[in-house]
């Protein structure tokens, strides 16, 4: 149980954030044709103007890019990165053949090395967004293995290893000229900007309007580059967490029932956020307070 004073302080912060958000409203807009390229330019320009001294690559570092004090602690932690064990475990799993003799490498282009920045992608044959985590489980199932749980554990380890082989490669997300791909993108964008839950917050309330501000002990990561360090080792969790884990816990923070991991809604959200981050280099796996 949290002490009452801290709960009250938290409620006050949230209310203050709500007020900040409420003042930023425009008059209502009618429906528009999706234009991802124009969205991307405006999105990145917003963050460049907000944090003019920050090179785009720095956005991959989330809260550590925002706060000098935290950054110093981080540099100390990074002498013995707490995700090292996960990268090791992931590498071993990645290289171990399945019971049928096939490997993960057989399921991916480039043998699965250095490709993290191209996920998620829109699969035009299936008509859906495919994340790296989903592709890993489909690879397993195609080869007669059970799918892994999505939020932590071996899934986080395998994606940690695959991210590590892709470090420094800028996000390179494509939106094909396909009605269904545009609809998936638009759905993710709608989710990101929609107020949800009892607290009436959108993802943007915290990660756009309040980016860089403190919420309780946390510094809010800016939405630009927000997935570039995944998966992460988070001290608060005491373990690794995937994008699904983070989406689930951010949904719950607003008192909104989270979707199931890899729900199409979350996949579309990841598609939108990753596309907005095109040009930000992969820095995963990451560590967070």
């Amino acid at each position, binding site marked *: 149980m949290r002490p009452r004073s801290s709960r009250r302080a938290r409620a006050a912060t949230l209310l203050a954030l709500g007020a900040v958000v409420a003042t930023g409203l425009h008059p209502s807009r009618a429906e528009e044709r999706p234009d991802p390229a124009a969205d991307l330019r405006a999105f990145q320009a917003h963050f460049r103007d907000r944090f003019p001294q920050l090179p785009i690559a720095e956005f991959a570092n989330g809260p550590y890019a925002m706060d000098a004090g935290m950054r110093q602690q981080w540099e100390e932690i990074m002498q013995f990165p707490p995700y090292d064990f996960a990268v090791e475990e992931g590498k071993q799993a990645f290289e171990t053949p399945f019971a049928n003799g096939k490997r993960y490498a057989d399921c991916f282009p480039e043998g699965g090395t250095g490709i993290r920045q191209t996920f998620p992608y829109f699969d035009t044959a299936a008509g859906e967004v495919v994340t790296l985590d989903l592709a890993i489980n489909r690879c397993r199932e195609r080869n007669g293995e059970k799918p892994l749980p999505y939020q932590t554990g071996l899934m986080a380890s395998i994606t940690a290893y695959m991210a590590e082989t892709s470090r420094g490669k800028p996000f390179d997300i494509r939106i094909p000229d396909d009605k269904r791909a545009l609809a998936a993108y638009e759905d993710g964008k709608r989710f990101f900007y929609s*107020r949800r*839950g*009892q607290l009436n917050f959108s993802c943007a309330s915290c990660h756009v309007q309040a980016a860089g501000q403190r919420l309780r002990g946390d510094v809010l990561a800016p939405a630009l580059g927000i997935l570039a360090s995944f998966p992460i080792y988070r001290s608060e969790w005491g373990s690794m967490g995937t994008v699904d884990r983070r989406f689930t816990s951010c949904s719950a923070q607003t008192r909104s029932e989270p*979707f199931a991991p890899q729900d199409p809604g979350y996949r579309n959200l990841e598609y939108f956020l990753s596309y907005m981050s095109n040009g930000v280099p992969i820095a995963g796996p990451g560590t967070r307070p």
Partner: protein
Amino acid sequence: MRRTWRRCALACAGMLLLAAGARAATEAEAGAALRAAEQQQAEAARLRNRWIPAEAALKAAREALRTRDYDRATELAGRAEALARRSVEQAREQETAWRDAVIR
């Protein structure tokens, strides 16, 4: 004497009113309240916007009904219904309002 009588009448009327208000809920009433809440929550689910406290109140209401605490079941179902109704309103409002928040 007359004043005492009047005071007594007032007190009696008050007690009757209180008693009526505090009358225990019946199983039928609790069941109806729960169905109303479930209906709202189903609509919230259809709009993919269930709220955690609405779901929690609904679960607790079902449990109270199961243990035949009809007062508590009715109260919790009422709370769940109110929360679910607000979540439905939020989803309907956000169908267009989200566009106002987009970075341009």
